């Protein structure tokens, strides 16, 4: 797995905390949805390090609303390539709830979804195959246009498409 942030492979500053493990308050941690929903107020608000949540794709994103001010990251899951529920969740988090933190794609993340993910508001990616991660910039340059507005509504219909990440010419041509 490779982690991509801001358009480039990076080191993931977060650790996943599984099930009933203790969640350290001084480490950037991605907790489960169950932990978040049952945690005491102090456990969430009294942290010294950023908090993220791993949110399943069959749970309404609206349940996250009260926690959004305390969340730096929401990881949304693609259990299999063809299960596209997280695209809807990402758009709603960005457009309806105004979430500005990291929205991370996890699970069966392949290069052929990158464009759709970027256009629905994802800005971080746990990419399964190294070759796909390497092709990230190239893939986002396959299209210079898009027909419809989505999480990028400012340009209306029938507009140019520019990836929202800085990408070097070298990467693009790789």
């Amino acid at each position: 797995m490779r982690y991509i942030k801001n358009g480039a492979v990076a080191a993931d500053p977060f650790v996943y905390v599984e099930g009933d493990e203790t969640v350290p308050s001084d480490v950037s941690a991605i907790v489960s949805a169950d932990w978040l929903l049952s945690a005491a107020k102090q456990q969430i608000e009294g942290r010294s390090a950023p908090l993220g949540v791993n949110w399943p794709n069959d749970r309404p994103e609206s349940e996250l609303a009260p926690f959004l001010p305390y969340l730096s990251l929401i990881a949304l899951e693609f259990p299999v390539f063809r299960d596209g529920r997280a695209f809807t969740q990402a758009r709603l988090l960005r457009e309806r709830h105004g979430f500005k933190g990291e929205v991370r794609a996890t699970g069966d993340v392949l290069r052929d979804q990158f464009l759709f993910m970027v256009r629905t508001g994802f800005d971080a990616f746990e990419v399964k195959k190294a070759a796909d991660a390497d092709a990230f910039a190239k893939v986002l340059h396959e299209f210079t246009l898009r027909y419809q507005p989505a999480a990028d509504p400012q340009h209306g219909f029938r507009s140019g498409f520019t990836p929202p990440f800085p990408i070097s010419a070298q990467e693009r041509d790789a």
Partner: protein
Amino acid sequence: MYVYDEFDRTFIAERAAQFRDQVARRLSGELTEDEFKPLRLMNGVYLQLHAYMLRIAVPYGTLSSKQLRKLAHVARVYDRGYGHFTTRQNLQLNWIKLSDVPQALEELAEAGIHTIQTSGNCIRNTTTDQWGGVAPDEIEDPRFWAEIIRQWSTLHPEFSFLPRKFKIAITGAPHDRAALKIHDIGLRMIGNAGDETGFEVSVGGGLGRTPFIAKVIRNYLPKQDLLSYLEAILRTYNAHGRRDNIYKARIKILVHDLGVQRFAAEVDEEWSRIKEGYLKLDSAFVADIRSRFIYPQYEDLDDDPGSLRRALATDAKFALWYRNSVSRHKAPGYAIATLSLKPPGKPPGDATSGQMEAIADLADEHSHGEIRVGHEQNLALPHVRQEDLPELWRKLDALGVATPNVNLVTDIISCPGLDYCSLANARSIPIAMEVSRRFEQIDKARSVGRLHINISGCINACGHHHVGHIGLLGVEKNDKEFYQITLGGKADEDARLGQLLGPAIPYEEVADTVERVVNRYLDLRLDENELFIDTVKRLGIAPFKETLHAVH
């Protein structure tokens, strides 16, 4: 005609280049078949029984002569010199090599043709009345709206991995020529109390193993809200449609499980949050799309010119074709000519490259360079001067596309069946060919009148058997092909599902049984004005049951 500009051309070319890369990665083994499958499907590439199949979109059934020539060329160079027109305004090539697909797509892109989303669990080619823009009963040309939907749905980032495929149909006329009620969403243009027009929206229609007729969830949708409302429906479906069982994943099951009122309420709740947003269609955008549709400059002509009347009086064969295949046009002195792709004894919906090229030439000569494709798997020339009809008919007849059987018993709708399709349980095309041979004498077919036979080779129902006046469904029993017969289905504005006549019958008995059903109807009908479908409606299927047992 919708005229592509640089934007549309660039987009299609970029899509073709992207797929070229995906095919290369599949051929090199970098992509597994499992990973490649959704990608190829979204580009219209199926893996059939013997070969790959390429499904090419004909958006809203409108083709220019240049585009039809390109289809003929691609069919000749990359396939076996013919194509199959489907029930959803697509053209299928059944023998293409995967390694040739990228080149074929590039050539198609040059003529503004693509295969985007002709398959896969995404929003498919939006279909319309094939007479859009020329039908006399039309409120408004439905094709602008189909084009707006095409653009909105093309590579939609949120709705490209839906629970299942998603089909939208739209009509601008009260009479439904687009089979709205068997679509995931059907849009019927209607007027409101004022001067405005909008859409009646139905949802949840579909055939397959659990057939449903679509239900109306909004009586009147203002046009400017079209895309926000569609997005609300799709979002509700993407979030809540079932993904655990492919046979329960269509929106029809969600609508059925929730109940139509609750489904409509959920859509309304979502819609209320987005309807005033950026999807609201402003008049400048709609006018821009509208301006890309070029209409012919019609001459100032009168209906029923003398030359036409003389030909009708003197040439019985022409008159027969005229009465069957020519329809009223909204411009005086013009007509719509339907070209039957159902000659007796031939596979329904097939056209050779030679025929396509000749039809393209005739379109240039007689129809302002335009051709239409209908869901009944026939073609039409939409702008023919009535005085040209006798000459046009002679040329069409020479091409073999003037069989005067439009809407008759031999105008059979059929899927490709077991001859091509890996899903099929039974053959469809040979059944269609044999049944059409039984009614080859046109006088016999005419005496029967309007009668739609629909044939599907499996429960997926691509031949729409549930809504055929006579529906034939191929099933497998002990490794043999059997066929269930249903009667009384309809796909128009009074859509309903056919009723099962009885136990399935073996392949060898199908044509005989269909003949007996038709003969029984001829005995039962009140007079020759009572159509088959009306007799079945009046008497039910009971009086037809004996036809199943006649040979036992």
